[in-house]
C-alpha cells in the first residue's frame, strides 16, 4: 500500500536543544533562537522545577518533543506507561511534533540507555512499521524518527540503513528527523557514502535536521554531541539543504557546553549557510 504524502508540519526556523545549562540565557535570548527541542523524558515527571521551567519556555518558544526511550525497534512490548506519559506531556505542551530514534534501547525488561542499531532486515522492517503505527495511534499524530549513529552493523542486514529508514517512513507513514552529524558518523564508521544516504531519503518526509559534533576515537568516530559541528558536517548540511530545501534546523549539544555566545554563533553559521541557498532556490 502506498502511504499518502504527509501533510506538512510548520517550518520553525533555527533552534536549539533545551539544556539546563542554557535556561537563563535562553529566557533572555535574542531572537535568533526561534524554537526549542526538549528531551521528553526529562519532563515526564509528576511536578516540581522541571515543569515550572518548561512552562516558562513554552510561553516564549515553539517547542518540539524529542524522546530517547521509546525503543521503537525493541522486541519487548511497547511500554504503555511510557506512552501514556509521553501522550500526557504532548497534551500539556502541544509541541509542533514529537520525535524519537530508529533504534532499540533494551530488551527483556532491561534498558541499556543507548540507541542501539537494528539489523536492516525485512523482519525488523515489519516489526518497526507496526510499532510506529501503534505509537501514532496512541499519540494521534505522525511521529518523526531520527537516524542514529552506529558503530556496528549486522551480518543479517539485507538493506542499507537509508533504505530501511525510508521504507519505515513510507510504510508507517511517519516523518524523518535527519541528524546530519549521525549520517556522517555512521558513513565514516561503516564506509558508505553520506551523499548516497541523503539521496535515499524521501524529500517530503524529512521534517527536521539535527546538527552536532563528534569525537575522533582510535579507529571509529564517536557521536558525543559534545563538540562544535565539524567542517565535514557543515558541508553535508549544505548538501542536505540543497536536496531537502527549507527544513527546521537545530543544534544539539549534550556535553562540554560552550559559552552561550559560541552556541549562538554556530546557529548563526547554520543560518548563513542555508539562507542563500534557499533564496537562490526560491
Amino acid at each position, binding site marked *: 500500500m502506498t502511504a499518502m504524502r504527509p501533510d506538512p508540519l510548520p517550518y520553525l526556523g533555527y533552534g536549539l536543544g533545551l539544556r539546563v545549562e542554557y535556561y537563563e540565557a535562553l529566557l533572555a535570548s535574542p531572537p535568533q533562537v526561534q524554537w526549542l527541542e526538549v528531551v521528553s*523524558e526529562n519532563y515526564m515527571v509528576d*511536578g516540581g*522545577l522541571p515543569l515550572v521551567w518548561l512552562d516558562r519556555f513554552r510561553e516564549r518558544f515553539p517547542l518540539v518533543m524529542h524522546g530517547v526511550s521509546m525503543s521503537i525497534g525493541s522486541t519487548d512490548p511497547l511500554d504503555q506507561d511510557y506512552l501514556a506519559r509521553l501522550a500526557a506531556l504532548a497534551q500539556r505542551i502541544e509541541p509542533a511534533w514529537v520525535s524519537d530514534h530508529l533504534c532499540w534501547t533494551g530488551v527483556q525488561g*532491561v534498558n*541499556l*540507555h543507548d540507541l542501539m542499531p537494528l539489523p536492516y532486515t525485512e523482519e525488523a522492517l515489519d516489526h518497526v512499521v507496526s510499532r510506529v503505527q501503534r505509537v501514532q495511534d496512541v499519540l494521534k499524530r505522525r511521529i518523526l524518527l531520527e537516524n542514529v549513529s552506529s558503530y556496528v552493523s549486522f*551480518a*543479517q542486514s539485507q538493506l542499507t540503513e537509508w533504505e530501511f529508514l525510508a521504507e519505515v517512513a513510507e510504510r508507517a507513514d511517519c516523518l524523518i528527523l535527519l541528524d546530519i552529524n549521525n549520517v556522517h558518523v555512521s558513513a565514516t564508521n*561503516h564506509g558508505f557514502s553520506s551523499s548516497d544516504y541523503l539521496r535515499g531519503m524521501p524529500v517530503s518526509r524529512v521534517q527536521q535536521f539535527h546538527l552536532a559534533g563528534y569525537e575522533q576515537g582510535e579507529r*571509529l568516530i564517536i557521536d558525543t554531541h559534545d563538540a562544535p559541528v565539524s567542517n565535514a558536517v557543515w558541508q553535508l548540511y549544505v548538501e542536505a539543504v540543497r536536496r531537502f530545501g527549507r527544513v527546521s534546523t537545530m543544534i544539539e549539544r549534550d556535553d562540554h557546553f560552550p559559552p552561550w555566545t559560541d552556541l549562538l554563533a554556530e546557529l548563526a553559521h547554520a543560518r548563513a549557510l542555508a539562507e542563500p541557498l534557499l533564496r537562490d532556490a526560491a
Partner: protein
Amino acid sequence: MSALQQLQQQMLQAVMDAKPARMLDIRGDAVADAQSRLDVYRHGYRVRLRDALANEFAGLQTMAGRRFGALLDAYVDAHPSTHYNIRWYGSRLAAFLHDTHRSTPQLADMARLDWAISTAFDAANETPISADKLAAVPPHAWAQLRLFLLPALQVLACTCNVDAFRRAADTHGERPHLRRYAAPRHLLVWRLDTTVHYRRLEDDEWEVLCAAQQGAPFAQLCATLATRHGETAALPRMVALLQAWLNAGLIHGLGAAA
C-alpha cells in the same frame, strides 16, 4: 524466538557483560574489527550508568570518597536498569548497599537521603494550606482534626550525620567527620514550591509527625507529646510544631478523623 529477538538478547548480554564477549553477528572490517565496534557500546553502557548515579548521589560521593567508583561498579554489575528514564536507575542503590555493606550502614543511610532528595525534586505538586485555614477550625473540631501531610514528605532513620555530608556536597564544603549515633535519629525531606529541604527531627517531633502521617487525630498527637513532656508542656509544644509545619508547607489538607 524470532531472529530479531535473538539478536537483541545476544547484543544486550554482550554489552552488559563485565568480560569482553564476542558476537558473531557483528561485522568487522578494515576500519575496525567487530570487538572494537562492540566495545564502543560496552564502554558507553558503564559510563552512562555511572554518570547517572553520580548525578543523584552527591552525598554518597562525598562520604565514600575514592571508594565511590567501586561502589557504583558493583551496583552496575548487580543491577541492570529497568526504567525508561536513566534518572531512576539509582532507585535500588540504598537497598543494595544495605545488603552488601552491613558493617558500614552509613553508606546505605547516605544513599537513602540522596535518593529522597532526588525523588522529592520532581514529585507531584501539592499546595500547602495557610495558617488562616487552620485558624478557621472551630474549637469543637480540634480533637478529631486530622492533618494531611504532603504525600512526598519522607522521614528517614539515620545511624550517622548523613545530612552533614550532603550539605558539604551541595555547598562544595569540606568533608565532615563521620559521627555515629548511639540510637537512630531522623531526618525530614520535603519540597516547598520548587526547593527541596531536609532537616533533623527532634525525637518528639518525629513521633508526632509519624502519628500524623498515619492519620492520628489532633488529640492523639497532643497525648503523644504529653507522654513525653507532661500535660502542661504538651500543648505549647504542639502549637510550636504546627507553626513550624505550616511555615515549611508540610500540611496540604485538613479533615476529620474517621
